[in-house]
């Protein structure tokens, strides 16, 4: 099966964040992703929509699932895929960034997928290249393809993206996944709750349209979706929680807390999971409740859709 050719539903060169997308373009990306979900389940998984196109994966942070997902997505679409992992030295980071951008740009890539530890760094890079740029995570800012794959997962389970109550639990402070999901889900008409101790909630986050809870039991009441976030130890400067043991007791998802949410509540996690820190293994591995592995599968399809939309008519050619 070949995905049907569509006009660029994004009407923009880059995908730097959920901010700036319309509900219609979100739906269009998800619709196209569905065709790739089907294709990926076929024995013959290859398409040639990006044949002759060059995709560069530029990762300034270590990543397994996101990088693999983009690499596989590019290959299944027939693109030539180059992997670049840049070890980050403390101070020269930014100079390396712009120099690297201009160097890669001179090779006429069609799409560059970038992950960087600093918020805003992907936009800075995008300002210095002519091709499409996809943000695969910039600091604590945005991770748009993660929010899109989460949306696809939710839509497949609940049949809609509006009128749902979604609890995002954990380290919201350092989470780009949380920010992108708040933007996407509130835009599509769902209610977002944030469940975390005050030290992990960024100031004025309620101005983004989310409701904040410090008591997980109250926060999970009547929720349709529970999104757990990883406790991001590498982004923590100082003491945000006293211990992982205490954190799990009050903010980890276990069967007792899960029982407070709606009986059909779906459990999600962007991975990688810290079992016993933010989520109990029995809950994570419960295939009747957990969509965690399905998120990985759908993530591949969403990235194929994004590469398809942005890569076909990229200015890099």
């Amino acid at each position, binding site marked *: 099966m070949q995905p049907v050719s569509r006009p660029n539903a994004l009407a923009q060169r880059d995908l730097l964040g959920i*901010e700036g997308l319309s509900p219609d373009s979100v739906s269009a990306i998800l619709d196209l992703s569905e065709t790739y979900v089907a294709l990926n389940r076929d024995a013959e998984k290859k398409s040639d929509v990006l044949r002759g196109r060059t995709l560069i994966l530029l990762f300034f942070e270590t990543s397994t699932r996101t990088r693999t997902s983009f690499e596989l997505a590019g290959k299944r679409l027939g693109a030539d895929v180059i992997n670049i992992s840049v070890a980050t030295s403390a*101070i020269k*980071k*930014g*100079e390396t*960034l*712009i120099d690297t951008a201009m160097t890669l740009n001179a090779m006429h890539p069609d799409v560059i997928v970038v992950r*960087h530890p*600093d*918020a*805003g*760094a992907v*936009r*800075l890079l995008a300002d210095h290249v002519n091709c499409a740029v996809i943000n695969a995570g*910039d*600091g*604590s*800012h*945005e991770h748009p393809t993660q929010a899109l794959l989460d949306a696809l997962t939710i839509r497949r389970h609940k049949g809609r993206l509006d009128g749902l109550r979604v609890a995002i639990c954990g380290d919201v402070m350092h989470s*780009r996944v949380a*920010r992108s999901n708040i933007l996407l889900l509130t835009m599509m008409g769902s209610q977002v709750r944030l469940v975390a101790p005050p030290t992990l909630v*960024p*100031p*004025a*986050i309620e*101005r*983004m349209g989310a409701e904040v809870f410090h008591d997980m039991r109250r926060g999970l009441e009547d929720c349709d979706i529970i999104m757990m976030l990883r406790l991001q130890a590498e982004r923590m*400067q*100082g003491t945000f929680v006293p211990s992982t043991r205490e954190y799990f007791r009050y903010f980890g998802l276990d069967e007792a807390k899960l029982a407070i949410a709606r009986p059909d509540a779906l459990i999600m996690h962007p991975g990688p999971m810290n079992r016993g820190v933010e989520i109990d293994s029995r809950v994570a591995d419960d295939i009747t409740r957990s969509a965690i592995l399905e998120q990985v599968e759908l993530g591949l399809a969403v990235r194929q859709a994004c590469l398809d939309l942005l890569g076909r008519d990229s200015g890099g050619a």
Partner: protein
Amino acid sequence: MTEKRTAYINAHLLDPDSGLDAGGALLTEGVLIADLGPGLFADGVPEAIETVDCGGHCLCPGLVDMHVHLREPGHEHKETIATGGLSALAGGVTSLCSMPNTDPVIDNVGLIEFIQRRAREAKGVKVFPFAAATKGLEGKQLTEFGMLAEAGAVAFTDDGLPIADSQVMRRALSYAKTFDLLISQHAEDLSLSGCGCMAEGEAATRLGLDGIPEIAETIMVERDIRLVEHSGGRYHVAHISTAEAVDCVRRAKARGLRVTCEAAPHHFSLTDLDVGDYRTFAKMAPPLRSERNRVAIVEGLKDGTIDAIATDHAPHDQESKRLPMAHAANGIVGLETLLPLSLELYHGGHMTLLEILRRLTLAPAELLKLPVGRLQKGAPADLLLFDADVPWLVDTAKFRSMSKNSPFDGRPVQGRALRTIVDGRTLFTFDG
């Protein structure tokens, strides 16, 4: 041979000290003001005197900027004493105070003399150096306040860094009393600002950037005021930026403590929303704050809580700014936008020209005991002729400063320096 005499006629004389705000003329003789007043040259100017027709524009004391980073020695690719001086003159500034956080740090007499020599060689703006309050800005050992002051240091600060140790700050304030010297503090509790790179709040949260909370400034100002109360001394808050810190200073003044402060134009003309999409040209320390704080700075200027307007002119090359927000250098150039941004307070109906000029001339001069900042017979002929109303667009490409890092590029403003005079010599003329 007599000294050269110049008559500035048809001027709108403005002097915050005497309250003079009237049409008239001013006569300079050599390096000094010889005479001035509404009636001067009412019957015409004698032929032997050079005449400058001011065209009805404002003639006031040259501006005094008490907070400037000249980057020399150590970072001459960003600014030098000479280029910073040209930038100052173009902005109407005739006296400026250089900050000691250079490389090496200005913490000994030899380096004070170096700055003075370089300023003399530039034959431009008057440079009154601040010296470091502690050796190497390390916040541990006091510098030689007495000998540095004798050599020409006009105040002491570790600017760029706060004096964090309470005992060191207490001793600095206390020891400075020996010579009645001013200690200026970059008030920031670094443990609270952490790795923040803009003001804490909705904008920072949306951008995913670590925020610097207002209390990082307030706590330091509160602590320092307690120390002044305990040990005495003259304490000055540099670039004050929060509503609460302004209020602390207001209350300290009401209690009779010798506490003063200055504000930078960007803190009363911009807010954290101007950071926009990671504009590193809007990154500085302290950061642009919320509208509530901006309004509080305006109020502080109006009621006199904030004594002076100072630029915190901080030149940086492109490479220091073309970085992700978290790694970009702090600071913006300010000398060439000081006057028009300050005049926004006049055009906005907040303050009179005399009230604004007081904070740009007399007030900083008095704080630092500088012999400038007045239109007075016998005073140095440091003058600024400016058009208070002319509209123009800020164009950083035209800045005399070596660095162009200003968030005001393209901003429509009103008012500009037409002629800047130091010791009777015209050193800058606006030529369109």
